[in-house]
Structures are given as C-alpha cells and as structure tokens.
C-alpha cells in the first residue's frame, strides 16, 4: 500500500485508488475516489497535483465533502452554527455543545476557485451590488441565496470592528436580505499603555486587560445565544472540554507542521499542508474526523521521515509563505520551481496556537480572539512572521496576495521591510488571482527568481 512519496495527478489517482482498494484500504464514510469530486463540479482538481498517500486522500475527501456533510447534519436534526469572520474562537464554543456543529460561511469564497467559476455565486453577488471590487468572499452572498452549498444555519454569528471592511459590507448586505445575524464586536488590538494592566496573549502578542474583558463580555452574549438556540446550557465545564478537544487538534497540527518544516527532505507537499491548516479553523464541520485526518497525516509524515523518504530535492529552497492563495495551483508551483515550505503564516496562525487551559475558559477564548493576526496591526504580524521565519530557518519569504482581498494594502511592504532589516532574507510579493492559468508563466518566473536568489546566497 505504501509507495514512495510523490505528487500525482487526478488521473493517476484513479489507478492509485484502485490499487489501494485492492490492497485493503479502509476508508471513512465520506471516502471514495478523488475524481468523483470533479463530477460534482470541482473542476480545479484537474489542474492540481496531489500527494499520493492514503492520508492525503482522506484529507481531500474530508475537505470536499463538507457540503454534503452539512446537509446531512440538517437532516439529522443537528444544530448548525455559521461562524462568520471568525477564525477559530466561536467554533470552539459551538462544538462544546452536544449535537452541534459549526461551519464557516466565509469559506464559500473558495467555491468559485475550486469549481472554476461554474457556480452562479459571484454573479448573484454582482446583482446585489457586491461586485468584483470586493474581496472574493463575496461568493458567500451567492451561496446563501442559492442555498446550494450549505443549509440555512440555525444561528449566524459575525464579528465586526477590527475585521475587514469588505466582509462587514457583505455581511450587512446579507443581513439586509433577511438573514438574521448576531453581531459581536472585536476591537483592534492595541499595545498597552505603560501603566496599564496588560496580559500576554498566545502568539507573542500582548494586550490591555480591559480589551480582554470587553471581548469576554461579547463572547458571553454569544454563549447565551448558542445555549438558547441549541436548547442546552453552555457552562464552563463544557467549554473547558471543548477547549481541550480544540487543543488536541491544534497540538497535532503543530506537530505536523514542525515535522514538515524541519525534515531534511520535505515529507508533505505545500498544497496538502495548506489544506490541513485550514481544517484548524472550523474542522470542516466535523471535529472528530479532523482529528482522525491529522492522525493519519502525522503517521504518514513520521513514516516517511523515519524511512528517509521525502518529496522534492533535498536542496529545495526553504520558503516561508505568508497568506493563503485563492488558486491552489500556486502551491504546486512553489515546488515546481525548486522550493519547499519551511513555515507558514496563512492569516489564521492563532487557530494553531493552543488555547490557554490555566485560566477560566471564557477568558481563554477572549485572549485567543484578540490574538487573531487580523485584529492586530500589520507590524505585530510582521513581528511574528520574522520570529517564525527565523526559528524555522527560512531562506526566503513569499508574501502572496489575493486581488481585492488585502486586509491592509500596505502590509506587504511593511513585512518586506522588516524581514529584510531583521533577517536579511529575499522577499517576494506575489499576487495570485483565483484562476492563475494565464498568469502562470509570470508567477513561475517570480518564484523561480526567488529560488535562484536563495541558490546564489548559498553559493556565496
């Protein structure tokens, strides 16, 4: 069943799947051949290259079956909570309740990318005044209106304040169209004044205690609303259990990242690692399966490392990647050009940091919410990027951008400045549109040039 690690096409996965089944592959209920997702409309898969392990197959299948899982949850009478503009805090609360799952409607921004714009989501958003000048997350508006990608949630929760203006506008339009939203405010994280009581947050940040107290009060409102909608009280003991479960997933992901980033030969492609990291935000609507997927990936990566197997050249340039990409092909391109991931900061690194378990759960969750890189300053984020890139031995940093989706138009320049000043590393800013086929030569040139810079520095 074990083959040497390789990246294979969807077409090659057909034979690989057949061989795995013949060898006795055990699959979860959502398992099956990868190519079936193309029949469901996920045409972008035809352009990608995938890791050839059963663990990667399970990862992809979990990701690509979320829609049917959500509709099945509705049929089973589960409580479904939509947690918008929240990268990892409110889902922890929702999953602490019995018979309740959380999902991330903002994730619909990916639908037109994976489905190669075959859905009407974007054109529907256009007709409601949310045109292409907005962030691609506007696809969410179309997804709500068509009802094709997820069922209407029992409760929609959305943070506002120090979140992106585009998203706030889109969520307000959604509200005006009749979807009730429970809004909560997340303030912009600020540095404490000299004499102000302050607290250290996960992820090297710190904030005034008063801000933590404010966010905690906001989260208390959410706790009450969740309890009311789900018909079950949500007490501290339940939240603590929820936090422990979340931390199990986060620990596994952190271990996976550490192994992938530090192994002499890269044991998992960038594409699969990006998907694995994204699961940490909301578990793809199934926390237990996310844990199982992480377990399989950890097992596979450990096996490859211990048998001295890996992908790509051992000399591959060690690249630290900042921000997620809309077109997953970009992740394949990195490796085509002679690079490999040695670290990431995909904008939701706080969903990977462990939630404190030595403080009351609502305080811990408030601290996590304030540790979100998007509610802090770009310079705070740059500090963390520098810290992580240095710790992980990065040889270059790649900052990707999605057109129309910058959280701070100037952040790339600021990151570049700080990285070059502190670490002296080459930095590349790369704009990756949702479908980058026509721009592939240009993207390839840039990434290849970055890798060449690394080679030159090594030679020196």
């Amino acid at each position, binding site marked *: 069943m074990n083959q040497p690690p390789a990246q294979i096409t969807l077409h090659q996965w057909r034979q690989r799947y057949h061989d795995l089944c013949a060898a006795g592959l055990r699959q979860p209920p959502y398992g099956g051949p990868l190519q079936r997702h193309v029949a469901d409309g996920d045409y972008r898969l035809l352009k990608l290259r995938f890791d050839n392990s059963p663990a990667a197959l399970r990862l992809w299948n979990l990701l690509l079956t979320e829609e049917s899982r959500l509709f099945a949850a509705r049929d089973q009478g589960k409580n479904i909570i939509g947690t918008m503009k929240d990268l990892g805090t409110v889902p922890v609360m929702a999953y602490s309740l019995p018979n309740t799952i959380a999902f991330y409607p903002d994730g619909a921004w990916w639908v037109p990318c994976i489905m190669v714009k075959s859905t009407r989501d974007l054109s529907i958003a256009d007709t409601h005044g949310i045109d292409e000048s907005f962030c691609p997350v506007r696809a969410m508006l179309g997804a709500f209106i068509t009802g094709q990608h997820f069922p209407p949630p029992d409760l929609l929760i959305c943070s506002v304040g120090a979140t992106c203006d585009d998203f706030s506008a889109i969520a307000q339009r959604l509200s005006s169209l009749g979807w009730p939203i429970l809004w909560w405010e997340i303030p912009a994280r600020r540095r404490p004044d000299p004499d102000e009581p302050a607290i250290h947050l996960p992820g090297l940040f710190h904030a005034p205690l008063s801000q933590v107290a404010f966010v905690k009060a906001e989260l208390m409102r959410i706790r009450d609303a969740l309890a009311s909608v789900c018909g079950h009280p949500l007490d501290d003991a339940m939240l603590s259990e929820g936090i422990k479960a979340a931390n199990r997933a986060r620990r596994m992901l952190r271990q996976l990242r550490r192994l992938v980033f530090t192994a002499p030969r890269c044991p998992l492609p960038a594409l699969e690692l990006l998907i694995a990291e994204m699961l940490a935000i909301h578990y793809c609507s199934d926390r237990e399966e996310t844990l199982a997927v992480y377990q399989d990936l950890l097992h596979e990566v450990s096996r490859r490392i211990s048998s001295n197997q890996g992908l790509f050249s051992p000399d591959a340039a060690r690249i630290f990647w900042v921000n997620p990409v809309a077109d997953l092909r970009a992740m394949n391109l990195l490796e085509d050009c002679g690079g490999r991931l040695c670290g990431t900061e995909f904008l939701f690194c706080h969903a990977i940091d462990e939630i404190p378990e030595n403080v009351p759960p609502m305080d811990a969750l408030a601290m996590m919410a304030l540790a979100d890189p998007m509610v802090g300053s770009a310079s705070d984020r740059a500090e963390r990027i520098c810290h992580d890139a240095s710790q992980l031995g990065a040889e270059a940093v790649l900052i990707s951008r999605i057109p129309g989706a910058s959280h701070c138009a100037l952040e790339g*320049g600021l990151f*570049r400045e700080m990285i*070059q000043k502190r670490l002296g590393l*080459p*930095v*590349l*800013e790369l*704009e990756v549109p949702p479908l980058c086929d026509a*721009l592939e*030569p*240009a993207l390839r*040139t*840039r990434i*290849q*040039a970055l890798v*060449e*810079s690394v080679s*030159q*520095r090594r030679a*020196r």
Partner: protein
Amino acid sequence: MICAGIDGGSRAIKIVLLDADTQQILASGACDQGIDHNALAAQLFDDLLQRLDLPRQAVAHIVATGYTRNGIRFADTTVTEITCHAVGVRRLMPHAMTIIEVGGQDSKLLRLDTNGFVRDFAMNDRCAAGTGRFLEVLATRLNTSLSALGDLAARSAHPASISSTCVVFAESEIIGLLASGTPCEDIVAGVQLAIAQRVAAMAGRELIDPIIFTGGVALVPGMRQAMEQAIAHPVTLPPHPQLTGALGAAILAAREVKVGS
C-alpha cells in the same frame, strides 16, 4: 570554449555568444519575437554562428532566459531574466546597486546587494502603462515609428500630462490632446514621463545609487531623462542595454560549464 545566452523576450530575441575563457563577447544580435519562439531563436543563433564561421557543436553550453525561455528547446537550461539581468549588468557596471529594466511588455526593478546578488525585485507584467507597449500604442496613434519618438520628445518644451495608470484610457487621452491641438512632441514627452512614473511607483522609496537602466525601452531617446525625472535619481545606461539579459545568461552558461568540469 564558447557559451551562449539567449534572451527570449516578449517583443525581441537577443543572443550573446561569449568566449568563456576570456569572457569576451564574440557576437551578439537581436530579432523580433514571433509565434515560433524556438525557430526564431534558432535562426538568429545560426546566423551568429555563421558570422563566426562556427558549427553549433562549437557552443559548449546554452542558457535561455526571458519570457519564452521554456520554449527554446535547444538550450541546455533556463534561468530567469531577473537573475540574468543582474549578472549581465554587474558585468558591465560592477558597482550597480539598482537595475530598472523596461521591456516591450513588462518592467522590472532589481535591488542588488554589495556582492551583486539579487536582494529583492518587483515586476510589472500586468499593466502596459509601465512598459514599451505604451510607446508602441503611441507610435501607432501618431502614425510614426518607435525610433522617431525620441527626436519628437527632444523638441518638447511642455510635456503633456498623461494618465500613467492605464494605456487604454491613456490612448483616449492622447486622442483628446491631439484634438485640442497639443503638439505631438509634448504628447510623446508626456507618455515617456508617464511610463517612467509607473516604474517609479513600482520602485517605491528605497532606491540605491548607482541605478542602471536597461531593456529595449532604455534605447529610446528621452527615456533616460524621463526616468531620472520620475525617480529623482541619476540613471546610467550600460552599453547595449537591450543585451544585458542575454549577456547574463551567457555568463551563467560559462559558470555552469566551469562548475560542471
């Protein structure tokens, strides 16, 4: 031993044949780009060899660079134009710290470290406003040639104000300026400044002298002055600015042979 560098640009193909031992340029040439990149490059390559009365086998190693580098099948390897321009310019101008390269369809800014290695780069290949394409559109609109634009610009006393953000809209502006009686020379000078301003916007604040201006657009009279005005720094042209990418590729080809042997 002879090595070759081929720069398959979007508008022109440039080739340099280099004596790897003496590092002297033996021959160089350029031709227009077309549909069959490989055949056009091969034709130019063979022409240069014929000039030296050499067979193809005399060339030990070929590095292709530029937009069409992967389509030049007789090259031994490829290197990006970013690296090649840095190597080529540094050979000609050893103290260069910043390179501005403006080609037919893209523009680049390279920051070098003191050793001549690329420290950082930015590229514009999404918008024609900062490229030679703007000049082509202008020449067509004015019913003149690219080579005549420089002379026209030199006669301008009051460059016209042209949008530097979009060639399509700028063409409308040009039509408007012509209709309002603005002299052609002022329009040409205005467009040159608009291109330079676009490049300056890409360059940002951090520009370290000496700044070298390369690429086919650097050959257009008046562009150097426009660039200096836009970035508020002195700008130097290397000898044969169109060939720096091909020269860099040839130098890298020679280095690869040396490392290999």
